[in-house]
């Protein structure tokens, strides 16, 4: 079986400049020869305006591994160009790294190496990123069997019609469900040591101009909540108090989201997406159902579209309240702003709970619509919030935070990313817009019905932590604007397409990538279907994961206390970073 994508070999583009680089063309992309991809990528970046490497992932096909690059133009908005590299050597797959061309591919290529075992030659730091360094095997390959493995796909046969309950622990530990490397001896085994000093080049760096020689030391921040964002670890090389190197370590919350996604049926994945960025589950639902709807060719009814927008914009407000609140938490304002934000979040979560049954794990969107209609009194409560309460609270927030001199002193000029850097590092969402790039998918590539609403794209030229705070605050006002229009225009009608609800949807073979402007950035879902009941490949472009790529760049040269603030302004949620 090969990729379910039509390819053509006539009229190959770029034959004049780079003959032989492009092997085939597809509807929206190119199949590229592995040995020519660096040249082609450089040409595309420099002459064709594809300056933004949005997503890198890989698919394990029986004959080859396929590495997929989704490119966009951001400085001059351009539609997707998909580069595919097919690696026929399945025992030792390897291709040149594109990190030198697009630094934003750094973590993503590491993830592909980690999960699929594809080596990227020339990558500056090719080691595991989500799994630990002693891990054996590459989990997203199709032949990988995890522990507690039962069957390739759900529903599992042991549940019905004769399914007695059995503990997973009883099924496994010392039976044939776990594989050890050949000749593996637990007594002789040593846990792998990562040589951070070498990786970060701590000892190679030239000392400053000062005559005083200071020893460079490594400081571990985390893994226990370096700044209450979750289990994340930064290894910071410092000279005195100055950050001279930073290496993020993540994956402590890795839950095999994508492997589970391939075992699941399509519908089962919806509640799992709630658990990605658990602050904004409604947005995650939306991104996923849009990807599958793209494959199925479904069009939700009008009312469902409006409900989706209302939920997504409420989610954005929730997420930004948390982002702003916890940024202040990191700055030492402790819980006052965070709890003020949390309190308003509670009111919005009440609305989510009333309509979907759960506050955080909403599981609300369905293919072709939404799970439930609004309840009695819902719209009045939403009106009260949108027209009265939230504007008042935002004013309080402005008074409380925006003018605070300590805050300004700590954030102005800290963690600066220029517009070029932000694009090169594949920053997304408020991070990108705070660097002076007014790139918002709701305007640039409107999905759902965002083209019907009037709102402004918030952007600041400064590129520092303060600008990121400001962009998030401004976006909350814009979200209120969208909410007002959506609530006013909300039509009556069905919320699902006609017909019986299907628990087993038919998804035609194909490949779809949908991206939405999530609260934290470009949230993408990449779904490959082979026509069966379960996705063949399911990948999440997690905005906060990719936004962390520039963490070292932003922190260098600042004090170690600023590294915490820089991290706080990225607004990471580890459920999404680690997946």
């Amino acid at each position, binding site marked *: 079986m090969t990729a379910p994508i039509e390819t053509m070999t006539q009229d190959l583009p770029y034959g004049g400049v780079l003959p032989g680089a492009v092997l085939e063309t597809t509807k929206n992309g190119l199949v590229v020869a592995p040995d020519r991809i660096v040249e082609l990528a450089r040409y595309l970046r420099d002459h064709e305006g594809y300056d933004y490497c949005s997503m890198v992932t890989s698919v394990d096909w029986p004959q080859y591994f396929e590495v997929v690059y989704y490119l966009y133009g951001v400085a001059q908005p351009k539609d997707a160009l998909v580069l595919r590299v097919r690696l026929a050597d399945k025992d030792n797959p390897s291709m040149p790294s594109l990190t030198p061309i697009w630094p934003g591919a750094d973590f993503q290529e590491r993830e592909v190496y980690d999960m699929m075992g594809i080596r990227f030659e020339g990558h500056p730091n090719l080691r595991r990123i989500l799994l630990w360094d002693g891990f054996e095997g590459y989990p997203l390959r199709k032949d990988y069997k995890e522990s507690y493995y039962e069957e390739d796909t*759900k*529903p*599992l046969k*042991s*549940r*019905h*019609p*004769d*399914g*007695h*309950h*059995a*503990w997973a*622990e*009883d099924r496994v*530990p*010392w*039976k*044939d469900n776990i594989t050890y490397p*050949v*000749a*593996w*001896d637990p007594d002789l085994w040593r846990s792998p040591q990562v040589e951070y000093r070498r990786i970060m080049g701590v000892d190679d760096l030239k000392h400053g101009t000062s005559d005083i020689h200071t020893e460079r030391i490594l400081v571990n921040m985390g893994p226990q909540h370096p700044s209450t964002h979750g289990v994340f670890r930064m290894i910071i090389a410092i000279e005195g108090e100055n950050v001279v190197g930073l290496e993020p370590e993540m994956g402590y919350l890795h839950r095999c989201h994508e492997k589970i996604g391939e075992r*699941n*049926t399509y*519908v*089962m994945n*919806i*509640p*799992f997406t709630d658990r990605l960025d658990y602050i904004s589950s409604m947005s995650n639902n939306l991104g996923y159902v849009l990807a599958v709807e793209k494959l199925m060719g479904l069009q939700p009814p009008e009312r469902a579209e409006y409900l989706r927008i209302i939920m997504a914009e409420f989610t954005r407000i929730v997420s930004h309240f948390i982002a702003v609140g916890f940024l202040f938490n990191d700055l030492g304002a402790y819980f*006052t702003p965070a709890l*003020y934000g949390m*309190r308003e979040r509670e*009111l919005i979560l*009440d609305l989510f*709970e*009333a309509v979907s*049954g*759960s506050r955080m*794990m909403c*599981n609300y969107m369905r293919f072709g619509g939404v799970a*439930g209609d609004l*309840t*009695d*009194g819902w719209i009045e*409560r939403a009106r*009260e919030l949108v027209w*009265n309460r939230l504007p008042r609270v935002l004013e*309080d927030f402005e*008074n*409380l935070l925006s*003018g*605070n*001199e*300590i*805050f*300004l002193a700590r954030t102005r000029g800290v963690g600066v990313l220029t517009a070029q850097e932000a694009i090169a590092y594949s920053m997304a969402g408020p991070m990108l817009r705070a660097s002076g790039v007014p790139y918002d998918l709701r305007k640039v590539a409107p999905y759902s019905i965002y083209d019907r609403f009037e709102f402004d794209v918030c952007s600041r030229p400064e590129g520092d932590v303060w600008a990121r705070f400001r962009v998030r605050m401004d976006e909350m006002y814009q979200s209120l604007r969208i909410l007002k229009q959506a609530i006013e225009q909300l039509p009556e009608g069905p919320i699902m397409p006609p017909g019986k*609800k299907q*628990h*087993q949807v038919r998804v035609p073979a194909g490949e779809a990538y949908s991206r939405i402007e999530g609260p934290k950035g470009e949230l993408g879902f990449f779904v490959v279907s082979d026509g069966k009941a379960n996705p063949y490949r399911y990948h999440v472009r997690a905005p906060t994961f990719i936004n962390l790529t520039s963490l070292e760049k932003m922190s260098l040269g600042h004090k170690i206390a600023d590294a915490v603030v820089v991290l706080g302004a990225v607004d990471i949620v580890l459920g999404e970073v680690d997946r």
Partner: protein
Amino acid sequence: MFGSGVFKGLGVTLKEFLATYVDDIKQIPSRYAGGKEEIDQTDVGEQRGLFTIQYPEEHRKLPERFRYIPMLLYETNAETGEKEDRCTACGICAKVCPPQCIWIVRDKDENGKPITRPAEFYIDTTICMNCGLCAEFCPFDAIKMNHDFEIAAYQRMPHLIFDLDELRVPVSYYQRIRPSDYAAEEAARLAKEAEKAAAKPAEKPARPAAPAAAAAAPAAVVTDAPAAEAPAAAGAKRTPEEIERLKAEAAARRAAKAEGGGEAVTAAPAAPPPPTGAGAQRTPEEIERLKAEAAARRAAKAAGEAPPPAAAAPVPPPPPPAPEPPAAPPAAVTGVGAKRSPEEIERLKAEAAARRAAKAAGDEQK
């Protein structure tokens, strides 16, 4: 002036601080003093201070669609008083369940032919992710999401594996916690019945539970389950002996399967699990009793009554000792629960290590 921003911010916090007290003063006597049980927080547009709820003295009023662990609805037959599950053991819930936490055994009649009701129904609440897909896709409105979130227990086994008895609630309970969903479903069903009746006037309604009557006067038809009845509920269709026998047989089957599959278990009959040891060592009687108690508690809750005092708690008749199946080695019984003794685990570990070593040696020779 430098510093004015800080003071402006402090003004906001001061305002919030005072507002909290203003709220309290408005509500004299304080709602915390009397222990108002359920607080409805749907109208908070004007509230300025904190709105903490002092759980467990106070509870938040849950929205109707609130979902926690699934429950199975039954209707009580007006004539015989028997509980009739709406569930037909079709298995859609087990198929759609994302973490696959539902196990269903379909019941059989005397001739061994499968019939449309569950013999056993388990939900492993330690795995359940509360997504509600089972309730959403159930074609018979038989499985619904419960509001009862206070199910914490000291041990996973057996308390958090809900079986048929623990999952069963009367329809009237469902009607109470989710009135509008219930009303909508009944209306839809009545419409369907009417349609059917119009199309085929001679045909009897498919469901013996007479839903039309249930809709008209649900309280009259569906009686709440008395607390004492719950433990005996299993007997509605099967005698306890029979169930015990079936369970033992199932265990034997599993054991036979395991014997064929893994050598680790083959050696197990030599080491019967000692009755004492780690926390998982409960006698089957004890487990039955605990389960029955839990079921009684839940039934009482569902019926809206206060939990009966411990002394008055219905003590189920001691279940007859499970007949020792000749084919079933003691290890088979342990396979049901997590009842491995530490010794056994050590032994299994050692065996596994030996196997690994042997394998490694073999590989080296190759």
